[in-house]
């Protein structure tokens, strides 16, 4: 059983979590071009390496950020969004 550390619920079976994809900047939908918007919706970096990702703990509906290595499937850390965006804010 693979374990993921939920910032709210502690270590849990990975089957309880839902992968939500890359953390990426959302374009301003009122002012961005169609190309920027479709790029945001459909196009992926699909990085073969370390990526910051959104994950959901499904039973508690809690959304958080994890850094994971997509070559080795190693979870490097998980963070509450509030911590992630203050630590890594651009």
């Amino acid at each position, binding site marked *: *059983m*693979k374990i993921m550390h939920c910032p709210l619920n502690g270590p849990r079976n*990975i*089957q309880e979590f*839902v*992968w939500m*994809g890359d953390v990426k900047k959302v374009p301003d939908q009122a002012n961005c071009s*169609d*190309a920027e918007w*479709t790029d945001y*919706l*459909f*196009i*992926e*970096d*699909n990085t*073969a390496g370390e990526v910051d990702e959104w994950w959901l703990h499904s039973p508690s509906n809690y959304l958080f950020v994890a850094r994971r290595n*997509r*070559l*080795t*499937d190693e979870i490097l850390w998980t963070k509450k969004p509030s911590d992630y965006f203050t630590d890594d804010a651009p």
Partner: protein
Amino acid sequence: MPFALLKYGLNPRRRDAPQLKWPSEIKKHYDVVIIGAGGHGLATAYYLATRHGITNIAVLDKAWMGGGNTARNTTIIRANYLTPEGVAFYKESVELFRGLSQELDINIMYSERGHFTLAHTDAAMRTARWRAEVNKHLGVDSEVVDAKDVARLCPIMNVSEDVRYPVLGALYHPPGALARHDAIAWGYAKGAMARGVEVHPGTEVVNILKEGDRVIGVDTSRGKIFADKVVQAVAGSSSRVSALAGFRLPIKTIPLQACVSEPVKPILDQIVVSGSLHVYISQSARGEMVMGGATDPYGLYSSRSTLDFKEGLMAHMLELFPFMAELRVLRQWAGIADMTPDFSPVMGLTPVRNYYIDSGWGTWGFKATPVCGFRMAECVATGRQPELLAPFALGRFGSFDLVGEKGAASVGH
């Protein structure tokens, strides 16, 4: 008999069947370089050589020939898709498959079994009806059958109502078939090499060489190779290679796992798929029960196997086929699938001139190998997007013209 075989093997004058020979040298220039020696890359080379007279071609692979998803798939071939674009495309592939043993002079063991997509809910029955109507309209043999017909055609299946998800009926597609995956790769390679195409295993593309917006060659683990045209057909590695060429794709790389049981006597003729239960099964010519399910729950560039996958698979499988409880799993494996948001491929021209892509094959690309090769060869030879491939162009994502095969691909192939 074993003695005769031994004598034959030790005879110094024995003549071995001709094998595929890799040239030791790579040339500095080719008309076309194809990245990826899977079924798709090899078929493209074959049809370029046989239909367009282009033979100065090198097919490069970072590993060995046909060892990617071509070697890992469960070989289900069918044309009963949901969208008219998809049905027309896969129909052409099935037609090519039927003549392929003759065309390639190799036994691809094409075996028409009949294909069930089981429905366990009213919603799934509605989708089955929708698909059957689209299929019939386009000349593809499909019909909706009820649970009694399923039981009559496939007596070994448990259609009892006393299970968690009783079978209500199915989409039945008589032409659904299996074939020998390795023979497809070897057959196309043999045919292409006989006409002068070179296959170079152990040759990884590490960069794409460009001049302005035009490709001029590739850099590899064995040095630079120049080419007038370059094709990438690298399945799970599509985003990594396209990044070298300077553009991104609507693709996520997600593992797909499969396994086989120990071999038993013939007991299951048909190919059985359940979209709701995320399982599918068929029996191979040598008796193994070949099984798979949906893709892994998250993206990964690794072909490891998990217990989660097998637990999820077996729970449903044992309800459909209780006799399977006595069988042991013999082998398990995975491939990395190039999944698109609309479950349709991405094929044809790219933002880089003379650089062509064949990708987005996810969990459904084996059945497309012949048509892909055939139409990609046309695309490369003419420099234009063939009509059949027009709906699958990379540009569709920018204009919201997605080809949603999702309804037809819940199990994903």
